[in-house]
């Protein structure tokens, strides 16, 4: 057998209280697309961080061989020099810099005297953008690009160095279907050009489409490495290896629990964003009944998150106009605090940006939105807090050594569960979930769906914003389609199909 391009041998990496990687071995052949799958917390990101020098040599045990030679990186720069580029789960671009500045950030094209040659930079940036098939002006600021475009800029940035191995950690988690397909095509092209790719993803469909080889991790151990080229690998097979048991239907059986009582109603709702200087919601009217799950479908940037925020106390200071009724009473929330008190909760889309306090521990995050409940005269009862946190840890199956673990140390999916726990503890009547299963493994998805089912049975009402149509179709009782800040359609679940929704979403 030829020597593999990359070989990681017997890698073990421990954190206080957690063995994140336990004797993992991992081989990548030159020129292949190698997918890495596994449950939340299985150790995928950690393995890649070991490879890229985030955890330097000596922090782990085991051996890394690149083209047969032993590698010992003491920092990220070393692995970059060796030709390994990693694109992290969360994007690492500087929003206020231009595209071309970002692409060459850290290895600017400069003269001997360290003076940056901007003309050359812009020119080369243009070439890189062509390589990733992104047609845009490199002088734009990154913050003005969509997530899909930003993702491509990240790849252009990686390609601007000499890369042998490109690692992508859940690149499509935040992308819609078109952008995802686009990205996968790009990876295929890069493969033609000889770039080897390691891809981490929870979207098993795309894994099957694109992978040459799949490695499954579970609980920090390599379970198996499968050859995916001959089409023998199916979703069911992957799921079985990932979770160790079979899951046939990822959407739980639901009895319809919808009552006639309308709990939330928004009428002729308009919002203007003074920062963007334009109107973002136009004449939106929606309602939600007790015990109902309403899906909000639409493309990225269609205004679904803005709608949720504007209802939930309007923290971004949009100029609003229209009527909002909660349980029959007209409301005018000044801030999220008011909305929470009135019985609403909003699980944000961006858990790191505005969902969690990463430097605090699991229990502090879970109780944050409802500290009153566990406090007497303003003094927090620590015993009660620990009890509550442990309850949610169990019911949501949050993988953590203890509730005193810092949230930044949890894996992406488990962070999402902490977010969910925090809002369930508020015990709301109306729960808004914004992309609730983004970055979450199949097993945990099933758990979250089961929890949603249980909640509506108990009389809660849920608005679920999701860009994944199967999820919308699998869980909703009714679907609104949002397009450019308007409601472009409403479908009862019996009539909803992917085609109809996509059609309405793009109009």
């Amino acid at each position, binding site marked *: 057998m030829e020597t593999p391009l990359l070989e990681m041998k017997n890698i073990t990496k421990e954190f206080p209280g957690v063995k994140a990687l336990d004797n993992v071995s991992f081989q990548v052949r030159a020129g292949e697309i190698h997918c890495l799958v596994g449950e939340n917390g299985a150790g995928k990101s950690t393995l890649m961080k070991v490879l890229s020098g985030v955890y330097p040599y000596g922090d782990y045990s085991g051996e890394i061989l690149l083209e047969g030679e032993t590698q010992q990186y003491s920092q990220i720069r070393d692995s970059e020099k060796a030709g390994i580029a990693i694109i992290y789960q969360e994007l690492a671009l500087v929003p206020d810099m231009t595209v071309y500045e970002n692409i060459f950030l850290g290895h600017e094209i400069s003269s001997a005297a360290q003076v940056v040659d901007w003309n050359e930079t812009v020119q080369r940036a243009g070439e890189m953008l062509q390589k990733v098939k992104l047609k845009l002006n490199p002088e734009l600021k990154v913050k003005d690009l969509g997530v899909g475009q930003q993702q491509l800029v990240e790849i252009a940035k990686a390609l601007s160095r000499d890369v042998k191995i490109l690692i992508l950690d859940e690149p499509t988690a935040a992308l819609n279907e078109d952008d995802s397909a686009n990205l996968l095509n790009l990876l295929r092209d890069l493969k033609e050009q000889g770039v080897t790719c390691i891809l981490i993803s929870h979207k098993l469909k795309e894994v099957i489409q694109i992978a040459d080889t799949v490695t499954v991790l579970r609980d920090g151990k390599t379970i198996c490495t499968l050859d995916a080229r001959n089409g023998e690998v199916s979703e069911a097979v992957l799921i079985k290896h990932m979770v160790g048991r079979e899951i046939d239907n990822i959407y739980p059986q639901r009895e319809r629990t919808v009552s006639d009582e309308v709990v939330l109603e928004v009428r002729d709702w308009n919002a203007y964003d003074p920062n963007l200087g334009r109107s973002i919601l136009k004449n939106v009217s929606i309602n939600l009944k007790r015990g109902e799950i309403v899906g909000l479908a639409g493309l990225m940037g269609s205004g679904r998150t803005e709608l949720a925020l504007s209802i939930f106390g309007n923290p971004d200071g949009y100029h609003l106009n229209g009527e909002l009724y909660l349980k029959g009473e007209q409301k005018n929330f000044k801030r999220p605090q008011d909305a929470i008190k009135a019985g609403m909760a909003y699980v944000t889309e961006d858990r790191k940006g505005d969902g969690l306090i990463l430097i605090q521990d699991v229990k502090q995050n879970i109780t944050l939105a409802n500290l009153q409940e566990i406090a007497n005269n303003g003094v927090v009862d620590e015993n009660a807090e620990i009890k509550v946190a442990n309850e949610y840890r169990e019911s949501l199956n949050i993988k953590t050594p*203890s509730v005193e673990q810092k949230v930044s140390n949890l894996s992406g999916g488990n962070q999402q569960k902490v977010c969910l726990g925090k809002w369930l503890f508020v015990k709301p009547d109306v729960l808004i979930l914004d992309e609730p299963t983004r970055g979450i493994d199949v097993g945990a998805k099933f758990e979250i769906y089961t929890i949603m089912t249980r909640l509506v049975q108990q009389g809660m009402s849920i608005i679920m914003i999701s860009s994944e149509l199967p999820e919308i179709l699998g869980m909703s009782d009714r679907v609104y389609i949002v397009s450019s800040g308007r409601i472009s359609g409403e479908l009862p679940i019996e009539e909803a199909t992917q085609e109809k929704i996509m059609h309405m979403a793009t109009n």
Partner: protein
Amino acid sequence: MSFVQNVQKVLKQNIREYGMYIALFVIMAIFAFTTNGVFINSRNISNLFNQTGYIAVLAVGMTLVIVIRHIDLSIGFLAGFLGAVAAIALVFWKLPVWVVIPMVLVMGAIAGLITAFPVAHLKIPSFVASLAGWLIYRGALLLVTAGTGTIIVPDAAFNAIGNGYIPDFPDLGFLPGIHKLTLLLGVIAVVFFVFSEINSRKKKQAYNFEVLPLEIFIIKLTFIAILIGLITWVLAGYNGISWTVVIVLVVVAIYHFVTTQMVLGRHIYAIGGNPEAAELSGINVKKMIYVVFGSMGMLSALSGILFTSRLQSATTTAGTLFELDAIAAAYVGGVSAAGGVGKVTGSIIGALVMMSLTNGMNLMGIDISLQYIVRGAVLAAAVIFDVTTRNRSK
């Protein structure tokens, strides 16, 4: 695991926190040596604590300001100005002490709220808003002292705040020359400390949380108990505990309790950790900015009172550079510039470190120019140590 490995592990995990105490200890040891013991005699330690008082209360307030990712530069001259107001109220308006002190504290709180307004509502950086305050209060201080120059305060009760000591039991005929109430309080403090530590350890164990290994826990307890005992003994050997120390301890106790046990404190740290997430979690961020700056203003007033009382007079330059000493104390004490991290107890130690340097170098007769350089170097070293140990533990 063996004992040595345990010690190593615990030290590594808590290097940041222990480092501060070790630094304080080393600095004190060096000065004890270079001043032939003068530095650690009862009289000087007592003096050191009293000097630290007016910076310590500022450092406590500053901790919270930095935790919510802001800064307040106006506090030095605000303290100076309000100290002068207190002097004027006592001397010229002839108001009694028990009226003057609450009045000045309220004025301080109002001043803090005024700084908070542009920060909370207009999103003006607190650096700029409080820089304006710095200029204004400096001007105000010059203005109120313009006619009189230094104002001498003859009020004995007021001056006791900065110079007096708590009373002692009547002479019982034993332990002559030792302040017995101070000793008693020290013993109570040790007992209280040991019990509360044992309690909290038990509680943690009941929840299966990580606790220190038993041997190390005992060592830590013994060490701190001896430390408290030693300080008490040293203070008791002079005049006992001063009113300044009592005031600082009360302030620290209150702030420590609020920040670690109360909803209010949780909200403050949540804002520091992630303001957007805090707002979305139903915390009124604007209101908290008012609370934190208001408390800062009130503590500035307290600092002004302590300082004026200590000097027994209000001067035209009172408060100069207090703000920077307080900020330095907070950083040395482990407050993170990124927000969301820092303890008020740490900042007190930080204040003590900075004041020990001044005091010790004064005793050694080191020139003021060198003193600044040394203090600057210690600040830089502390922050570098902080950042590197923090990153490593990640």
